[in-house]
């Protein structure tokens, strides 16, 4: 038998004496830290906080929609709920979730660096995030926000009676947090790789974050200036987007979607990166078509910038332009398809286990498949003219962002929890939670596809009674989903303090982050590692202690590096 079982059950496992968690103490050592791992934990706490705020709004929306006439909230309150749900979830949960938590924690570990290139800027970006978040929370408390997360003008700049200015300023500020994170990642991947860590030995998680950073760098400034102009328009009466002054509200949409469409890739690319780690690890096999998956990430980042007006097919944009953008939209579907096929192909010939992270990976595959394919419906001009701005769109992007990004996020959190905390989460309850999430998610959002095709528009606080059946299903699903989100929050927190000690490499996995102790040292590695293996290569890594056919060496006497 292999050493794996031994390392997992051996009684001798103890947390290492010195880790990044206990190197210094006190609130100052956390709030002024420049350690990327501690900053990642700061993000984890704040992002989770915003997730539950956004989740609360979501619950109110679903409860309200149980009946056609909506007994729970007034029209204005309902409008505030869905707007604040969108703003919180997109700008304060989805965009920072995987990059700022897992990316921050793992990228230096994965490339064998001691920290990110600019540790102080990394801390600064967390503070900017908190300041932006505070502005937005302030707007929620003082009058709320009822413009929709898209802030369409002139509703947002002239007609809305809610606290638009602080919310817009909050999102504007948070944008800089995202820019600085992206900048830090790009520079880090370029200049901080350990010896031997060539570009094509990088884990795909790093590739995905590289692509994400490109989008953050190039897209976010545009939303910043756009929201800046919108705020100026509301406060000082600048007129770029106000038709009463000759401005053009469609221009706002162009600028808004130039960022906000690629922003979808900021949300989904890191999740794809997580899945590209999970599948090879739990199939114990190299990822099928590594180069293609890496290239697909970059292709998504680039082509993703060329499709933004598919959100505007029915605003009266030029017909020619609509046709061109529809064409490009179909092109951007291809790299995602390539990734999906490669993940599926990786399973062949694998040695597949069904640990919780892998269940999330399977869940991601299924939900991303539905979400991605329904994107084709919306990119198709002839269908979009019917389903645009209906619940079909709502269902589609929740499949991508919740089904895709959040599944990836939770999968990654489970997978690296032993690295982050040094302790294992309880396996069985975690598997149950993953299943609950999958079932609850589908019950919540699948009926919305049907609702959309039947013609129920988005953002309705009351609706014709013929739509009720599907709304009831959706609300029932949302209740299950809520439990599915609460469970991991509870047991992961518990496991961080009382879970079983995990050891350095419990799965085992091949990444550089698993060669150091769990939780890692503040400097990550005792000596700078030298990389001699390809990503996800289980065959030439005898120190993992696996039964590789053709290798007879016992793991305990294995050489330090691969013997090829």
């Amino acid at each position, binding site marked *: 038998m292999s050493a794996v079982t031994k390392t997992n059950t051996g009684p001798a496992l103890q947390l290492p004496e010195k880790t990044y968690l206990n190197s210094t103490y006190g609130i100052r050592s956390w709030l002024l830290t420049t350690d990327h791992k501690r900053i990642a934990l700061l993000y984890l706490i704040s992002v989770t906080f915003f997730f539950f705020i956004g989740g609360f709004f979501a619950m109110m929306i679903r409860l309200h929609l149980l009946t056609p006439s909506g007994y729970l909230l007034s029209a204005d309150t309902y409008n505030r709920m869905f707007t604040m749900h969108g703003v919180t979830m997109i700008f304060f949960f989805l965009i920072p979730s995987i990059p700022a938590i897992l990316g921050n924690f793992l990228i230096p570990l994965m490339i064998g660096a001691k920290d990110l290139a600019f540790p102080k800027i990394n801390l600064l970006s967390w503070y900017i995030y908190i300041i932006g978040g505070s502005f937005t929370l302030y707007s929620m408390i003082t009058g709320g926000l009822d413009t929709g997360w898209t802030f369409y003008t002139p509703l947002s700049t*002239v*007609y809305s009676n809610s606290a638009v200015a602080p919310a817009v300023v909050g999102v504007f500020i948070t944008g800089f947090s995202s820019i600085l994170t992206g900048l830090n990642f790009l520079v880090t991947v*370029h200049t901080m790789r350990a010896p031997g860590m060539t570009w094509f030995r990088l884990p795909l998680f790093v590739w995905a974050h590289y692509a994400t950073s*490109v989008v953050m760098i*190039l897209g976010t400034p*545009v939303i910043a200036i756009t929201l800046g102009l919108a705020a100026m328009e509301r406060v000082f009466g600048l007129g770029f987007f106000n*038709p*009463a002054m*000759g401005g*053009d509200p469609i*221009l706002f949409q*162009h*600028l808004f979607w*130039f960022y906000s469409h690629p922003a979808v890739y900021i949300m989904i690319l890191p999740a794809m990166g997580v899945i590209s780690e999970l599948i090879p690890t739990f199939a114990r096999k190299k990822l099928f078509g590594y180069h293609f998956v890496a290239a697909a990430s970059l292709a998504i980042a680039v082509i993703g*910038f*060329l499709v933004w*007006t598919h959100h505007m097919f029915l605003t*009266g*944009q*030029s*017909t*020619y*332009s609509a046709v*061109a953008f529809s064409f490009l939209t179909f092109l951007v579907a291809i790299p995602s398809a390539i990734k999906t096929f490669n993940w599926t192909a990786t399973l062949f010939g694998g040695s597949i286990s069904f640990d919780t992270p892998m269940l999330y990976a399977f869940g991601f595959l299924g939900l991303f498949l539905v979400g991605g394919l329904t994107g084709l419906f919306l990119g198709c001009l002839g269908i979009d003219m019917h389903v645009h701005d209906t619940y079909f769109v709502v269902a589609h992007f929740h499949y991508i962002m919740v089904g895709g990004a959040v599944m990836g996020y939770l999968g990654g959190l489970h997978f690296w929890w032993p690295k982050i905390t040094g302790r294992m989460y309880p396996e069985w309850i975690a598997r149950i939670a993953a299943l609950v999430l999958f079932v609850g998610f589908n019950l919540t959002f699948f009926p919305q596809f049907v609702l959309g095709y039947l013609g129920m528009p988005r953002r309705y606080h009351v609706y014709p009674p013929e739509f009720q059946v599907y709304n009831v299903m959706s609300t029932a699903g949302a209740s299950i989903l809520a439990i599915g989100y609460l469970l991991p929050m509870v047991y992961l927190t518990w496991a961080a303090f009382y879970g079983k000690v995990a050891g350095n490499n419990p799965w085992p996995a091949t990444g550089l982050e698993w060669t150091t102790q769990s939780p890692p040292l503040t400097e990550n590695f005792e000596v700078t590692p030298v990389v001699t293996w390809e990503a996800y290569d289980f065959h030439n890594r005898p120190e993992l202690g696996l039964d590789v056919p053709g290798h007879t060496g016992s793991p305990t006497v294995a050489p330090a590096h691969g013997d090829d």
Partner: protein
Amino acid sequence: MSEQEHIDHIVPPSTYITIIITLLCLTALTVAAAYVDLGIFNIVVALAIATLKATLVVLFFMHAKYSPKRTKLVIMAGIFWLLILLFMTLSDYASRVDYRGIRYPMSQNTHFIASPRA
């Protein structure tokens, strides 16, 4: 180390002086050009001169000419994405025709309905 030379390439002051004189001359030229009505070429000439000036600043003052390929890639990416933003948006405006067959911008009708804020 060749890498080191790339980074610390020292541009002699004579080059800087040549560049600033060129830049000032180009500024004078563009101001002079503004006094001549070239029709549609007003904007072309003004932007061409500005681009030439910006290129000189990037290449010499900012040492891009002596920088590693990676830096040049970053600059090109920035320009490329800016062009995507400008031209793909303009492509919509340039090809807009409204139901009366009127092209943008003449189709923009701000007198449709007086809409003072309530």
